[in-house]
């Protein structure tokens, strides 16, 4: 059944390009990571500049490492392995190039906009709508190129890795599109289409599956190619790989709600998420075991071969992370660990351990094979890198497990009188030393990364490049006998003859189906307030909220009080779904580096906030010798004028989304805004007069800080109006 032998060549240049991009963005992403880690120990490292504060750099770090570092690495590995698995050159060189340069352009745009505070406020989906569209287009180019290669393949069997790549492409495309529905105010600003609880659910359905289909499935695919190659052993059980692929795919999509346990999301949805999360252990561990056992019989080589070492640690980290994940989904565990530093620890086992170490191993194996002499520059350096990276990862995560446990316990500690034992700032002071250990761990990992870059560049630079690798394989002849056996249906025949047309049409079907399903939400105003006293934000508060999003306050502050006595005692009445119906986007946050702000309104006076935002430690000066707050200072909010030129557009955008501002209110919005601002400014002037920090109301009334204070003072207050009435 095999056809004529055909000669062709593999495109190595594209893998090499993605490889260089990985090195560059990896260094940038990790460097920013180390900086923000140190910022939590030494807040002065925020430099009192907008562009370098934690709230803006944290999204820059996550986007850079996930989409730039890991993304480029995935593409490098996929382009290398896909061609060889299918015995075919990539479908179209032009598409490969477009994919590469398009992706790099996206990264540059992303970095610039995040620096400038242009952000949607949704975690891991911070990029604004024009970039979202670019991402969708480039992703489709990648998919077309991949599927095109499958169509012209010379190997009938689709090796399991390819299924993982395919699942990655299809699912990420849909997740990205659904989560990115937003209404533009202008080129740089948009509001999420969904509000409050609904937005939260879409976001974490996306967020969870981004981990599943961007950080997991592509890497399992890569593992199934590169681990057997590096160990020179067939995969332990090919049958297991197939079973575990399908199980993983069918279970993963349902686990998203485990990010929203004890939130205002309906209970049954939470339970659904928990059940599927627990089930995930089986296929995840199936993959880990299969990977580790592939190295059976090669264990003696693990001692000297850094590549295999990296694989072993990567797979072990994968096993740990996928054990921990389902454990966190248990409500009792979640009640304790959620919002603490335990979560970053869990995440970094996955990223530093699984993704990072996989990338190192793959690149150490692949880079030499892109050259004539086929040898790694230095295995010794690779081993050094291995030990430094592993030590860095361990320091990082142990410190954060420690910090998370300590803070989690302290938050819940009662004293003998039945009152909370610790103020929030005490719990910060207690764990700050661990932040230093974490930063040192990160620095080590970064150091290892520089060794990695050096080694790879030396490998590539010291030998002649092989951009076109000659290969030959018999052409693929479809076996007709097989076809007629299957079924008599014409439809099936077509599918079989053009197996990959199936992929294409199914994807189209999904998109059409998605659109049809989405249309009703766009047409119907579904934001019926369930709590009568919950009102839309005033224009000033809305502008303040946008500043909150711009500065990324939600990377340190949650706005969601869970129904535990320890939380209601500390923060006030627990959060209700009906309170968030005008929140486009939702700002619940996922980490409490600072206290929850859901009921901040009215807790402090305007002047307190004014002083605190200007220099957070100003409010602790009297009580502490060492300034304990690790919140960045925001001096520019006090000097910069609030831009109200977009306020009417924002009101209109909100109206489109169903927020009930009166017809034609956009025309009055700026007037109302200025009136409310003048009130707050006067109040601050009075409160601060004679304290030595005097301000003049007229000078501060049109500053950004006033809008932010208006927003903070509004938070969580609507519901108490209800009880007063």
């Amino acid at each position, binding site marked *: 059944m095999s056809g004529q032998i055909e000669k062709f060549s593999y495109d190595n240049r594209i893998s090499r390009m993605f490889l260089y991009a990985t090195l560059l963005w990896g260094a940038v992403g990790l460097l920013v990571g180390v900086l923000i880690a140190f910022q939590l120990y030494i807040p002065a490292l925020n430099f009192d500049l907008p562009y370098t504060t934690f709230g803006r750099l944290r999204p820059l770090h996550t986007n850079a490492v996930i989409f730039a570092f890991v993304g480029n690495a995935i593409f490098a590995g996929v382009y290398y392995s896909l061609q060889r698995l299918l015995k075919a050159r990539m479908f179209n060189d032009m598409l490969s190039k477009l994919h590469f340069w398009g992706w790099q352009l996206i990264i540059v745009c992303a970095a610039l906009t995040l620096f400038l505070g242009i952000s949607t406020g949704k975690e891991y989906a911070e990029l604004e709508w024009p970039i979202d569209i670019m991402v969708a287009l480039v992703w489709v180019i990648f998919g077309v190129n991949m599927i095109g290669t499958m169509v012209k393949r010379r190997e009938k069997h689709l090796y399991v890795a390819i299924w993982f790549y395919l699942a990655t492409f299809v699912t990420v495309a849909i997740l990205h599109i*659904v989560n990115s529905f937003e209404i533009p105010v202008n080129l740089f600003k948009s509001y999420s289409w969904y509000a409050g609880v609904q937005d939260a*659910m879409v976001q974490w359905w996306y967020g969870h599956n981004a981990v599943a289909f961007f950080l997991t499935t592509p890497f399992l695919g890569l593992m199934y190619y590169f681990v057997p190659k590096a160990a020179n052993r067939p995969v332990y059980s*090919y049958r297991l790989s197939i079973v575990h692929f399908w199980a993983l795919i069918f279970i993963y*999509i349902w686990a998203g709600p485990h990010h929203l346990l004890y939130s205002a999301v*309906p209970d049954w949805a939470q339970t659904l998420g928990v059940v599927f999360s627990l089930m995930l252990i089986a296929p995840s561990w199936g993959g880990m075991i299969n990977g580790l056992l592939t190295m059976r019989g090669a264990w003696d080589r693990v001692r000297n071969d850094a590549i295999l070492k990296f694989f072993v640690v990567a797979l072990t980290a994968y096993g740990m992370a996928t054990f921990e994940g389902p454990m966190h989904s248990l409500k009792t565990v979640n009640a304790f660990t959620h919002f603490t530093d335990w979560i970053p620890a869990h995440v970094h086992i996955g990223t530093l351990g699984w993704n990072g170490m996989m990338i190192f191993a793959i690149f150490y194996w692949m880079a030499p094979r892109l050259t004539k002499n086929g040898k790694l520059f230095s295995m010794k350096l690779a081993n050094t890198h291995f030990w430094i990276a592993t030590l860095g990862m361990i320091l990082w995560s142990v410190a954060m497990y420690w910090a998370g446990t300590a803070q989690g316990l302290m938050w819940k500690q009662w004293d003998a009188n039945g009152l909370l034992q610790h103020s929030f700032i005490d719990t910060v002071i207690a764990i700050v030393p661990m932040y230093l250990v974490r930063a040192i761990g990160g620095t080590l990992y970064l150091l290892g990364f520089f060794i990695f870059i050096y080694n790879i560049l030396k490998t590539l630079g010291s030998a002649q490049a092989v951009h076109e690798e000659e290969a*030959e394989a018999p052409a693929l002849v479809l076996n007709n006998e097989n076809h007629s056996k299957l079924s008599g249906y014409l439809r099936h025949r077509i599918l*079989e003859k053009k197996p990959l047309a199936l992929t294409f049409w*199914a994807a189209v079907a*999904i998109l059409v189906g998605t659109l049809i399903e989405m249309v009703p939400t766009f047409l119907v105003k*579904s934001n019926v307030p369930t709590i009568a006293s919950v009102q839309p934000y005033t224009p000033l508060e809305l502008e303040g909220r946008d500043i909150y999003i711009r500065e990324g306050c939600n990377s340190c502050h949650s706005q969601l009080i869970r129904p535990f006595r320890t939380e209601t005692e500390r923060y006030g009445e627990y959060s209700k779904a009906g309170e968030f119906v005008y929140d486009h986007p939702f700002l619940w946050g996922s980490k409490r580096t600072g206290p929850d702000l859901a009921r901040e309104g009215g807790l402090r006076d305007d002047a307190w906030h004014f002083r605190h935002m200007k220099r957070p430690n100003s409010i602790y000066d009297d009580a502490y010798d060492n300034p304990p707050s690790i919140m960045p200072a925001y001096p520019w909010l006090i000097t910069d004028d609030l831009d109200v030129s977009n306020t009417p557009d924002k009101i209109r955008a909100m109206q489109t989304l169903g927020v009930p501002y009166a017809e034609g209110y956009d025309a009055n919005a700026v007037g109302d805004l200025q009136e409310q601002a003048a009130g707050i400014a006067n109040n601050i002037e009075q409160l601060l007069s004679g304290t030595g920090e005097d301000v003049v109301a007229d000078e501060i009334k049109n500053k950004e800080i006033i809008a932010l204070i208006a927003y903070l003072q509004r938070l969580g207050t609507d519901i108490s109006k209800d009880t007063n009435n």
Partner: protein
Amino acid sequence: MKIIFIMIGISFIIALFFLVAFIWSVKTGQYDDTYSPSARILFDDKPNSTLDKN
């Protein structure tokens, strides 16, 4: 809570897509042989190699 049903709907569509893909893969004999693919990937397709000519 309409969004829940929309998301479950979309998730179902994704699952359905993979179900179809799964049935296709089984029916077309992708999994008839669960050993040799794992060994085959270990060979390179260097010109003039005698391997892999079935």
